[in-house]
């Protein structure tokens, strides 16, 4: 049962990720990204990280993909000539393909990573909320503060980038 669920979710995720890469239309690519993120949230549920599955759907599917769709429709590049895949030099193609294939195959062909059977069989600890809060406000307090500052900087950056300032033409 667990195996079947995992396989369905994994193939669903990978196929919709392939859809993001091969779709010509940017709107369809964004919708494929949405499907892919839903699959990843399913994988998180399989891994018993329920909170993360929820947050992933909320932040990514709810905010990021919506933002992508909004921008795709705002820019409306449908009038542009049809974009063919970029032509890379032969050596770059061979090198990139070989590296990617060997990277993925090294995961599948490798001997099994050492996993303690007891830990794998025990229920995951990612289900409860309390441990997350404890970790975030003790061990990872400084990174949380830095992230808050990063979000502030990003917000100011976005405002500066998108707003037209009077008499400040060199900002752009």
């Amino acid at each position, binding site marked *: 049962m667990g195996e079947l669920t995992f396989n369905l979710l994994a193939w669903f995720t*990978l196929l919709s990720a392939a859809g993001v*890469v091969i779709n010509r239309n940017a709107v369809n690519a964004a919708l494929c990204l949405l499907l892919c993120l839903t699959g990843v949230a399913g994988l998180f549920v399989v891994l018993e990280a329920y909170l993360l599955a929820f947050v*992933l759907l909320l932040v*990514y599917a709810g905010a990021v993909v919506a933002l992508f769709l909004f921008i795709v429709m705002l820019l409306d590049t449908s009038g542009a000539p049809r*974009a063919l895949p970029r032509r890379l030099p032969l050596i770059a193609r061979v090198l990139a393909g070989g590296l990617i294939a060997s990277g993925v195959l090294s995961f599948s062909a490798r001997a099994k990573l050492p996993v303690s059977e007891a830990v794998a069989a025990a229920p995951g600890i990612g289900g409860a909320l309390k441990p997350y809060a404890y970790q975030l406000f003790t061990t990872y307090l400084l990174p949380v503060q830095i992230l808050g500052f990063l979000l502030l900087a990003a917000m100011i950056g976005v405002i500066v980038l998108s707003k037209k300032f009077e008499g400040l033409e060199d900002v752009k």
Partner: protein
Amino acid sequence: MIPATLDGHLLVSGALFALGLLGVLLRRNTLVVFMCLELVLVASTVALVAFSRYNGILDGNVFVFFILTVAAAEVAVGLAIIVALFRRRQTVQVDELNSLRN
């Protein structure tokens, strides 16, 4: 069939990463390149969650929060840059945005 073990999850994560990288290398539309960049970030979160599940710790899961936040900030700034670029150049194709090349 992919086994539902740590190795299986890492295989999925690696394949997702490879697909995202392929998209970044091959696509010409800046917006789609950006979406593929998001795929790469999500692939890393799958690996983190799988590692912390199979080691019985929470650190990987907590780190996913940080990755999500950074990704959200990155999307906001990146899309603002793309919109500003489109206003000025009327294009989002990677090949035409080459004024830094020479």
